[in-house]
């Protein structure tokens, strides 16, 4: 069981959250016309080992999106922030 720190509600069980997505992916410029770029943006994801930033939604709590930095190998948490307050 992961325990995730919500900046609004405090430390909560993972079951209160829904995983969003990789928080490091950036949408291409809307004028981008290369289908390969859009294909990679929509479908292609890294499977990193180690520290990684992820979006989580505190769906059973404050309903805020947060960015969690987590070690995918050890599950160690390094910090979490309201998504609207950070630039990742």
């Amino acid at each position: 069981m992961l325990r995730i720190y919500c900046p609004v509600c405090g430390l909560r069980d993972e079951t209160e959250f829904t995983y969003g997505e990789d928080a490091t992916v950036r949408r291409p410029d809307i004028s981008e016309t290369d289908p390969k770029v859009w294909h990679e943006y929509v479908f292609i994801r890294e499977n990193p080992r180690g520290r990684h930033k992820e979006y989580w939604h505190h769906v059973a709590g404050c309903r805020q999106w947060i960015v969690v930095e987590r070690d995918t190998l050890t599950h160690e948490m390094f910090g979490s922030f309201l998504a609207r307050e950070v630039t990742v």
Partner: protein
Amino acid sequence: MAKKHQSPVRGTTSDGLPVTIREVELGTLTQLAGWEDFDILADGILRKQALSLPSDCRSSFRRGLTSVWRIAPDRVLVRSDTAMNFEAVDEIVTLDLSHSRVCLRLNGRGAASLLSRMVALDLSEAGFPIGTFAQTAIHHVSVLIDRVGMEEFDLCIPTTFAVSLTGFIAEHLNQVA
């Protein structure tokens, strides 16, 4: 189909502590939501009703039968015994949620013990003192838990889950007639 329990439900926890579960009148539930200047605007609206915007999302503000819960940085819920006429402000959205929630009251020496079987929160007196609230889930249903007394909790639960969730909570008790 969920078994319908006759309110109030009385029983004891497995450690022998008595608990009573009863549905109580929720009153009026109003949500105020906003954007950038939420703190200033919402506090201004609340102060005209002799209320105040809580600074955090864990402490309830109470005045008489009215409670204010800050459920997100830019959202508050106001529970009151009568409808309140909040000032209309362009950047604040007011929504009447009175019919969307039902209030269950857990009362008795085993109330915290019963709840701790269903939610992963520290419900000790130190970890969850009177005047504290939390939004969490019971049986995957979002609920708001408000500690109104040392041995008393109010649970705001979605109306559509009132029967099934009451049953789920009651199943954790050794019920007495």
